[in-house]
């Protein structure tokens, strides 16, 4: 028997009806297997929203096994790739089964999934060329000896960014903050997913990292709840209540230099350092976590709320390859 998903939704679903329609999530279930039609997904906010709806549908509202069907997808950017990989492993973690219907892929999509090694990470196939991709990786543990060479070799070591070895090492140290943050706030048990892409025409590099942990705003709010009774917070009760009631304010707090959710430990430089680095590179960042998101670009930094909740953190950064954008690292100023 076929079951139309669209006819049987909660009020949460109707909040996102427009997204779901554009998503073509007219999945059908036959027995206990649900076929999910993946649409074309790019880098815009609508695509991100669609990915979070997909995450919510498949992990919070459904209990069936899943077949991912790519027949309606003409392109899948790296954001979609990391999210699909993460969703698939999260389904598996919950004792359900998933599969990718590779035969449903259009040739360009299949070629891309082959090159970025997404396909081979699930079916043990072999890819002889990675093209302009920074390959898909699933890291269950915080393994510096796997992640740092990944950044050095696949991101900075391919001649796309004309920087010295010392500069590449310094940049890698900043990018490490993304992984440290993902594993610190992660606690999901399924690890961290990452994938990137080089865009030769615009001379840009993009990297996406996702974890399925408690999320940064949630982590900040728990921290403020714990220390609500201390005198300093009573002196600044207005700010504390604002952070406790508003996740975009909680996210903004996490990016302030010197703020940390670790009790009696110094810290709070990681996200601030990452933000400063991207600003000086004239790059951009989008970060989605719980019900908040940050857009950082040439126009500044903007913290907003989103209707679609995402239990985890999704970071996408885009950097300029132009060597001039990295020269400040060689100057004496602090990050």
């Amino acid at each position: 028997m076929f079951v139309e998903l669209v006819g049987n939704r909660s009020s949460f679903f109707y909040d996102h009806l427009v997204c779901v329609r554009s998503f073509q999530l007219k999945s059908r279930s036959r027995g206990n297997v649900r076929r999910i039609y993946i649409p074309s997904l790019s880098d815009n906010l609508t695509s991100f929203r669609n990915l979070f709806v997909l995450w919510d549908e498949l992990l919070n509202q459904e209990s069936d096994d899943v077949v991912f069907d790519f027949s309606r997808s003409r392109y899948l950017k790296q954001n979609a790739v990391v999210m699909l990989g993460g969703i698939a492993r999260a389904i598996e973690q919950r004792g359900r089964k998933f599969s990718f219907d590779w035969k449903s892929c259009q040739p360009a999509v299949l070629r891309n999934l082959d090159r970025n090694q997404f396909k081979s990470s699930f079916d043990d196939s072999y890819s002889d060329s990675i093209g302009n991709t920074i390959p898909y990786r699933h890291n269950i543990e915080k393994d510096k000896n796997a992640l740092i060479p990944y950044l050095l070799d696949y991101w900075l070591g391919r001649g796309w960014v004309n920087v010295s070895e010392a500069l590449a090492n310094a940049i890698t140290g900043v990018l490490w903050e993304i992984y440290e943050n993902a594993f610190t706030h992660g606690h999901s048990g399924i690890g961290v997913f990452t994938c990137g892409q080089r865009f030769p025409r615009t001379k840009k590099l993009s990297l996406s990292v996702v974890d399925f942990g408690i999320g940064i705003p949630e982590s900040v709010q728990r921290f403020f709840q714990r220390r609500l009774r201390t005198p300093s917070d009573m002196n600044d009760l207005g700010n504390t209540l604002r952070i406790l009631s508003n996740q975009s304010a909680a996210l903004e707090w996490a990016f302030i230099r010197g703020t940390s959710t670790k009790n009696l430990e110094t810290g709070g430089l990681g996200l601030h350092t990452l933000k400063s680095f991207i600003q000086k590179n004239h790059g951009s960042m989008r970060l989605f976590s719980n019900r908040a998101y940050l857009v950082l670009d040439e126009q500044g930094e903007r913290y907003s709320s989103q209707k679609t909740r995402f239990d985890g953190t999704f970071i996408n950064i885009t950097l300029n390859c132009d060597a001039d954008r990295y020269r400040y690292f060689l100057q004496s100023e602090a990050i």
Partner: protein
Amino acid sequence: MRGLERLIVSSEPKPVYMSVFELVGSPFCVTSEDGERLYSLLVSHFRNEDVVTLDFEGIKVCASPFFNTAIGRLLAEITDSASFHRFLHWEHLSPSSERLLKTVIENAHQYWSKMESLGDEIQLDDSNKPQ
């Protein structure tokens, strides 16, 4: 008492030279877990009144979680800046990593000063409690 004074005067701080590469087992000083291991060693050397030099030869990539845990936390023990710089020295650190380390130290000084004043506030608050 006189014997103890003589002991203090005559005891020279023991110089300790530590290879960070050997400690972390790779060219990457990035994780808080590695920082924790270095912190434990540094605390015990500080309590022994040793003078430590960290050799970063062979280290390529550094990140703030490592420095925060290894050295930022140390400043809770060593509140006096002069004592800290007498106790801890480093060499062969790349310019960008040294900048990062100095930022971590500055940040930690601010954090622990704030915690200290907060502790005073808490004590004051406790003393005002009704008996």
